[in-house]
């Protein structure tokens, strides 16, 4: 029995030692393999980098010949070149970027990405959406719009971002629709995409924003208010003003009150003054008071005077910051 126990122990220890050695060898092999791959990638990038940099720094008549060199990159090296060019699009715009976009189009980058938007793998679909967005060509729009309904939230998120990069204002309503309950696409992604679109053409966004300001979903209204304020979409200002007093959500009323600091004018003062009423949500009252203070006109500041005796210390502080008003009774020579 003792001999058997010793045998079992020895065999067990031997097997464990062998497993440890195998694990160690596997770890070393993986690290060495990664190192080899990284060095190989670096070597490939080193071949394409100077060609891409030459395009990005080219002047006028230097652009076309520099692009030809990139376009002539042999097939084994092309995936590296394509990745490097796409990465550069995050940082660079202008004629040189447009020239490289044409090189990518000629080499089939967009066509391959559009095809990959129907891949079985969500990772491949997301990457495809990212590429379509980076290339920024309108031909990719339809495939990306379809991805707003993708089963994967990561794909939907990348698709929303890509639509912002495509810059087509006609998809604004679809983007806002991506904020529906259960979608889980971050509002910040949709907001940023809309701002990107609107920076090129604010007027084209107006209908979508006006519709969104009346949407039944709170997140959609919040996003619309934020975008309208950021882009200074003045035609939506009165709709935003309506949200201050009439929106069922305190969060939207707060956001709208703050938005009027950029969108509002003299017409907004009565609305903001009403929003400081004691029956209103404390956050809304504070936002409205802050906006009146930011406006700084005598009429706006006058409406802060009654808040000097308010129960809310933050409101009292804002009212005191407003200082003496020009139209206070008894003021004058």
């Amino acid at each position, binding site marked *: 029995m003792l001999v058997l126990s010793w045998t079992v122990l020895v065999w067990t220890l031997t097997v464990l030692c062998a497993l440890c050695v195998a694990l160690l060898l596997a770890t070393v092999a993986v690290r060495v393999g990664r190192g080899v791959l990284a060095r190989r990638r670096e070597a490939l990038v080193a071949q394409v*980098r100077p060609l891409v*940099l030459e395009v*990005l*720094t080219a*002047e006028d008549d230097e652009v076309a010949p520099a692009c030809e060199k990139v376009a002539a990159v042999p097939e084994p090296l092309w995936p590296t070149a394509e990745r490097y060019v796409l*990465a*550069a*699009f*995050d*940082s*660079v*715009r*202008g*004629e*040189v*970027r447009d020239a490289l976009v044409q090189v990518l189009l000629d080499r089939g980058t967009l066509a391959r990405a559009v095809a990959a938007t129907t891949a079985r793998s969500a990772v491949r679909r997301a990457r495809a959406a990212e590429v379509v967005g980076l290339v920024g060509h309108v031909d990719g729009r339809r495939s990306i719009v379809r991805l707003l309904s993708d089963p994967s939230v990561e794909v939907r998120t990348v698709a929303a971002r890509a639509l912002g990069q495509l810059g087509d204002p006609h998809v604004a309503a679809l983007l806002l629709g991506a904020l529906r309950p259960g979608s889980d696409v971050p509002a910040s992604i949709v907001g940023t995409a809309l701002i990107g679109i609107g920076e090129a053409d604010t007027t084209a966004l107006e209908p979508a924003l006006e519709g969104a300001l009346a949407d039944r979903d709170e997140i959609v209204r919040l996003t619309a208010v934020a975008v309208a304020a950021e882009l200074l979409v003045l035609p939506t200002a009165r709709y935003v003003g309506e949200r201050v007093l009439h929106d069922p959500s305190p969060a939207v009323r707060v956001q709208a009150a703050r938005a009027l600091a950029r969108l509002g004018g003299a017409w907004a003062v009565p609305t903001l003054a009403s929003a400081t009423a004691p029956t209103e949500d404390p956050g809304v009252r504070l936002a409205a008071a802050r906006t009146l203070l930011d406006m700084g006109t005598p009429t706006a500041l006058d409406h802060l005077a009654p808040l000097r005796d308010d129960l809310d210390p933050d409101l009292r502080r804002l009212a005191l910051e407003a200082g003496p008003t020009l139209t206070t009774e008894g003021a004058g020579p």
Partner: protein
Amino acid sequence: MTQGKVLVVDDNQDICDLVALKLSNAGFEVTQANDGLSGLELGLSGDFDLVVLDVMMPGMSGIDVLRRLRDAEQTATTPVLLLTAKTQERDVETGFAAGAGEYMTKPFSPRELLVRVKAMLARRQP
């Protein structure tokens, strides 16, 4: 003959190289730094006619570097062009308030950057 000496500070090596190549092709003598601290050390030497400075860098940000350059007598008036992904109005205000002469957002046009650098240096000349 060099058009001037420019310091480029950006933690993204590709952007650093791109800006440096664009400027050196146009005749500038360019020095690079990849983080705020080394950028500040080089910048405080006072040897540069202009600094191109990224804002978002680990450790010391471009705004902090800019403020330190402005506090130093030898670099108080060195033209600084901020090159940044931060596009909000308040970020622009912060940059100019810290003493930047120009503010360019990414993605940027290399051609436009060169034009602005030349314009900034031309404004400096008597």
